[in-house]
């Protein structure tokens, strides 16, 4: 596959090749996308009928790129008499300036052609190519080309205008030009998308949403975003690079939600550029000490879309939090269930956890009171619809066998949950980390009930239930032979006995008794799970282990950050430090941008982390990883009105200084040093 260049602004993004061209690809997401629709699938620039060859690509900003091109293929003699510069910006709309430069002393007569086309594919049709059910047409104007897709009342349009006159046809624009000696010709192509809504207007206008922004506005927003975040000073260069990269990537992944016209974070480019309950909440948990402003819009939007009834197609139940929200054709015509889809068993307890964690940092008790009934409904779900089999655990099984998700935990690929010998258990399944989240949700829910809702009886009940769950869980999920927790229970209540990274999440949740924690930590850092670059999703001796398996052997940075948090919670600072160090080492090979996942090969076999071929990047919870690791290294924990700072920086990492950490204490600085002696410093 050719290397690709992406620029993005939340859920509007362009993926092209290194010339800036988009070649038709029915089954791969190259193109210009917005709100889950591909608005351009062909965008090819030629000079006198010839494709152009990239000399270099400049990723100026996440929303801006430049391509320096010359005619001819790389094997040919480069005709340096003419060159082309494409300058592209995305900010709600899509703008491209095409400049042709004549480097010779003679006038240059040239034909510049931009081939334009759109298949208006829904993102899910790219995952699974199929015939479009609607009609596409092209309208040729004097200086514009309009492409339109219609299916009943559903309509999508993209309009392309040019500032320089040209010959417009249904498939593109042709410019016959003469450039004076050492002169230049350029045109600006401006693309706007329309999604038809109320009164024949674009839905963003009907809902009073912000549309496109200028480059200056985008730059200003980014500067502001970066200025709000704590400043990091560190001797560890990879950590500093990763920190800055993460802040920028999280800015890039923000988009304006239709439902609440606030900014939410999308999950990952290119497949997951939309709201996911699980991903957005994990990202918020990771980023809370740094970018707390991300949390309230996420919580409000998820609460606004909380499940209200039983819907088998969408796996919806009252009180459940959504899994995925899409805006495209397949969601509208109910070919896919994402309007929204509720197929995740963890988003509901995570919602309770995030509300509590957010209050502990921010002191924003108003939001806790505002969300009281949503949180109560979420806690009710855990014990009602969540407990499918009535055995005191969260179970999942999709009721939509056509297009629902089989595995409704974070490891949601079909083979992710297996017995040690490779067999797959029947449904429903109760994975272990779900029970940890449920336990934590009850403990945190109790604190909210007692502190903010004036309901001590409910708090007592939740704590009692949490204690019972902990006891039950430690009896049923423990695999005595291996001394670890099973990945799941099967329908007979027997352990699905695979060793997996899920046990690290149990430490984070606090469901592990102290006398078992050391065993869990030893497994996480042991040779079966720890590759040297991080903790693998699945142990190397499992039947389905594959170092390139999506959830069955690769290393996920997000997973590792939660594991490091869990180890820290139980006092395993050295072990948490090893994971932080490994992630920093890996980040170096990705220019500070940790991908969704990388291969699980042992570090002794590879001097670098092997890239997972189709990993999403940037990915929100991978971008959140360096942030959470910093929290773990510095030991940042809110306690009452104060921030506890208790650093444990691994040897060789040097100084880590984080200034202006926001929270209920306003701003606080933290300092950690690996040698000669660890220090803590607080300046309220």
């Amino acid at each position: 596959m050719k290397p690709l260049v992406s620029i993005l602004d939340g859920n509007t993004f362009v993926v092209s090749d290194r010339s800036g061209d988009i070649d038709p690809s029915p089954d791969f997401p190259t193109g210009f996308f917005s709100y889950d629709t591909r608005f351009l699938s062909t965008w090819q620039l030629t000079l006198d009928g010839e494709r152009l060859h990239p000399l270099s690509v400049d990723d100026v900003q996440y929303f801006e790129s430049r391509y320096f091109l010359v005619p001819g293929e790389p094997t040919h003699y480069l005709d340096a008499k003419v060159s082309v510069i494409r300058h592209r910006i995305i900010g709600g709309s899509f703008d491209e300036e095409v400049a042709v430069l004549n480097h010779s002393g003679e006038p240059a007569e040239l034909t510049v052609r931009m081939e334009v086309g759109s298949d208006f594919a829904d993102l899910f049709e790219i995952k699974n190519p199929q015939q479009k059910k609607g009609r596409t047409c092209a309208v040729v104007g004097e200086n514009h080309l309009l492409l339109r897709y219609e299916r009943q009342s559903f309509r999508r349009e993209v309009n392309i205008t040019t500032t320089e006159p040209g010959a417009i046809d249904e498939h593109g624009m042709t410019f016959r030009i003469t450039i004076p000696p050492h002169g230049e010709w350029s045109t600006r192509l401006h693309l706007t998308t329309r999604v038809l809504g109320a009164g024949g207007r674009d839905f963003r206008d009907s809902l009073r949403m912000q549309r496109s922004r200028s480059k200056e506005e985008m730059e200003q927003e980014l500067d502001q975003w970066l200025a709000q975040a704590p400043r990091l000073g560190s001797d560890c260069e990879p950590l500093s690079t990763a920190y800055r990269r993460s802040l920028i990537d999280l800015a890039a992944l923000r988009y304006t939600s239709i439902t609440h016209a606030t900014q939410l974070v999308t999950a990952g480019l290119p497949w997951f550029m939309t709201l996911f309950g699980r991903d957005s909440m994990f990202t918020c948990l990771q980023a809370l000490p740094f970018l707390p402003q991300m949390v309230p819009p996420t919580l409000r939007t998820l609460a606004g879309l909380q499940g209200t009834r039983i819907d088998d197609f969408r796996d919806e139940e009252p009180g459940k939090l959504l899994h995925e929200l899409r805006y495209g054709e397949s969601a509208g015509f109910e070919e896919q269930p994402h309007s929204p889809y509720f197929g995740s068993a963890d988003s509901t307890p995570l919602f309770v956890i995030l509300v509590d964690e957010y209050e502990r940092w921010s002191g924003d008790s108003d939001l806790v009171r505002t969300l009281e009934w949503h949180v109560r409904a979420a806690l009710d779900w855990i014990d009602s619809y969540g407990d499918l089999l009535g055995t005191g655990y969260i179970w999942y099984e999709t009721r939509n066998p056509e297009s629902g998700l089989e595995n409704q935990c974070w490891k949601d690929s079909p083979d992710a949950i297996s017995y040690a010998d490779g067999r797959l258990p029947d449904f429903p399944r109760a994975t272990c980390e779900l029970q940890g989240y449920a336990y934590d949700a009850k403990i945190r829910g109790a604190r909210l009930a007692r502190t903010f809702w004036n309901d001590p009886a409910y708090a007592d009940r939740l704590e009692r239930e949490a204690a019972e769950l902990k006891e039950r869980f430690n009896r049923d999920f423990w695999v005595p032979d291996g001394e670890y927790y099973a990945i799941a229970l099967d329908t007979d209540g027997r352990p699905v006995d695979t060793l997996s990274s899920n046990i690290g999440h149990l430490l984070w949740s606090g469901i592990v008794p102290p006398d078992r924690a050391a065993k869990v930590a030893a497994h996480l850092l042991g040779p079966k799970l720890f590759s040297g670059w991080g903790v693998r999703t699945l142990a190397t001796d499992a039947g389905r282990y594959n170092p390139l398996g999506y959830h069955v052997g690769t290393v996920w940075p997000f997973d590792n950050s939660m594991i490091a948090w869990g180890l820290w919670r139980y006092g395993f600072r050295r072990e948490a430090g090893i994971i932080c160090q490994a992630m920093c080492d890996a980040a170096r090979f990705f220019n500070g941008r940790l991908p969704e996942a990388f291969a699980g090969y042992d570090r002794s076999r590879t001097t670098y982390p092997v890239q997972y071929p189709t990993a999403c990047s940037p990915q929100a919870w991978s971008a959140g990883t360096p942030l959470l690791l910093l929290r773990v290294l510095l030991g940042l924990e809110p306690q009452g009105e104060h921030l506890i700072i208790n650093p444990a920086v691994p040897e060789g990492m040097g100084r880590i200084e984080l200034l202006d950490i926001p929270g209920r204490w306003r701003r606080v600085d933290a300092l950690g040093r690996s040698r000669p002696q660890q220090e803590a410093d607080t300046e309220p």
Partner: protein
Amino acid sequence: MTGATVDFFNSIPGKAQLLLRIPMAGTLRIDLVEGHRTEHWYVTFAPGQAQVSRDEQVADAILTVPTDLFDEFVTGRSRPNAAVLRNDATVSGDIRLFLALRRFFPAAPGVRDPREVAREKVAASRQTGHQRTTNPPSTGQHSTGAGRYSGGHQPNAVDDPVTGPGTREHTG
């Protein structure tokens, strides 16, 4: 306008105490369109309360729906969010009011409690014996299903289909 629609509007105030315990305020106008005729309904929301009126007033949001489609909403045969995404219904103004109304629409007719279904299935499979696990690892196909996992783009093939009740085969 159908009887079901009238019943639906009449039931809103009584259900608000239970369904609308969220801080939320404003008026939603619902335009029911049939040919050239449009009927207006107004629902004014407040925490734990909702009032329904036919009297013209200022609205913070407007939901426009064909009358027969709205009848499908109130009888649980169609879902408003999807209808808005395919532009069969439209919303303008403060969309939170539309989401508030959404809470009052019922489930589809004949829908069963998923717990009942799951427990029956497990009990039945216990009776017929244990054939509920599947084969060791092999190459195979991948899911095209909803959601998170980017099926179809993994370098290694993944799953073999799970056999057993209530599960499915994947088609690549």
